[in-house]
């Protein structure tokens, strides 16, 4: 049984709060609910960005997701466009 939208939202937020690193790949959220299709999880993560619960963090080539309060500055990682 796939999680309901609200349960999925809560699980994604929880994961973003607890993960050891503040930035998460979209794939890290797949594990929140193995019964929901990756594209549906992506859509939910992007909705959470619009709602301000998550933010995008991009190196230029790869985009990650983070809780805004866990990101302090604008330091980059390795990577290319």
């Amino acid at each position, binding site marked *: 049984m796939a999680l309901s939208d609200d349960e999925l939202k809560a699980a994604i937020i929880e994961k973003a709060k607890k993960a050891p690193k503040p930035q998460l790949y979209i794939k890290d959220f797949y594990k929140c609910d193995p019964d929901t299709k990756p*594209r549906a999880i*992506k859509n939910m993560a992007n909705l959470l960005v*619009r709602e301000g619960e998550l933010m995008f963090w991009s190196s230029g080539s790869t985009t990650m997701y983070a809780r805004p309060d866990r990101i302090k500055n604008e330091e*980059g990682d390795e990577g290319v466009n």
Partner: protein
Amino acid sequence: MAKHDTPLLDELESGPWPSFVSDIKRQAEKNPDCWDILGQLELSYKEKITHWKHGGIVGVFGYGGGIVGRYSDLPKMFPGVEHFHTVRVNQPASKYYSTENLRGICDLWEKHGSGMTNMHGSTGDMVLLGCRTEALEPFFWDLTHGMGQDLGGSGSNLRTPANCLGQSRCEWSCYDTEETCHHLTMHYQDEIHRPAFPYKFKFKFSGCPNDCVAAIARSDVAVIGTWRDDIRIDQAAVKEYVAGNFASNGGSHADGDWGAFDIQKEVIDLCPTECMWMEGGELKIDNAECTRCMHCINVLPRALRPGAQQGASICVGAKAPILDGAQFATLIVPFMEISADNEFENLIDFIETIWDWWMEVGKNRERVGETMQRVGLPTFIKVMGIEPIPQHVREPRSNPYVFWQDEEVPGGFERDVQEFRKKHAA
């Protein structure tokens, strides 16, 4: 007046070719921030290390792509490039502009950014180089509301699709590359503007195997026009070429003295599959052997044309050399009809089958071509629901093993791996 001494960069102005150093100096006379680009670059040449930091949170509201954040790690020394974000603007299909539009873009960028551009980035977008974070929203407002244009893709998004100019100017185009590119760009707006995948994903559209957008080298899905019937031959025109009355290659090499045109040497002997010959004054082609390389058509454009049954070959998995070196795309579908009549349904189904699989199986920062390589082509074509065909084979067998699935063997077979592993540990 130059703000920094740049002896190393100045050397790059001494050659006979155009120099980006001269360009930046010229722009710096207008926008003094640009002196700091030169200053920082000179320092990097001296220290042999970059002073750009990158990554972060810049963007415009509602979008998760289109802007690539860049900062100087020496903002005190080079305040003009403290923030130096790159903006990607979705180019019009085939890069047709009016000069009015180009002036508009340039004026907008002088107003909000450094004024420096890179036309075009290798993704295809117009690339506007260098602005501060607080300039982004006002720029975006003017771009969308004033010019009716939009950002392109970056990060883990679908990247701005690109196409050759196709049927708008080129008689060889085997499908409407512009309509296809435009339709898919509009269809996938969400994927272009917001991250959708484990990593970047690109598709590009060329109208024929000349592949003027280099789709096969640069895109995860390359849609390359082709034909499935015979090359159309006008034998009277062949005779004119042989007699030297028509310039070969449309006259493109007419400035050199290459001697008289020799169809044997310049066409037939260069056919990669050796499938052409002259017979009774006529040019013959064994079309079953033709690999659609375009060479003969390029040399004899008035005599030869692509066949009339037109569509595209779909190749998957090209990438640039970050990990494991560069890789061309692999042929997956030799012929697909590409038509606006069904809103490109076959192509869209194909793309989404890849996405559903790659999003699940692909690792973080793994291009689909790398995922394919990891699982092997037989597994990939099975995922795509495609029957193996000779065109999938690059060379005669180098792998002596054949693996059968139970449904492929009469009577099938049952195998309980767990039961087996009890006796034979893996």
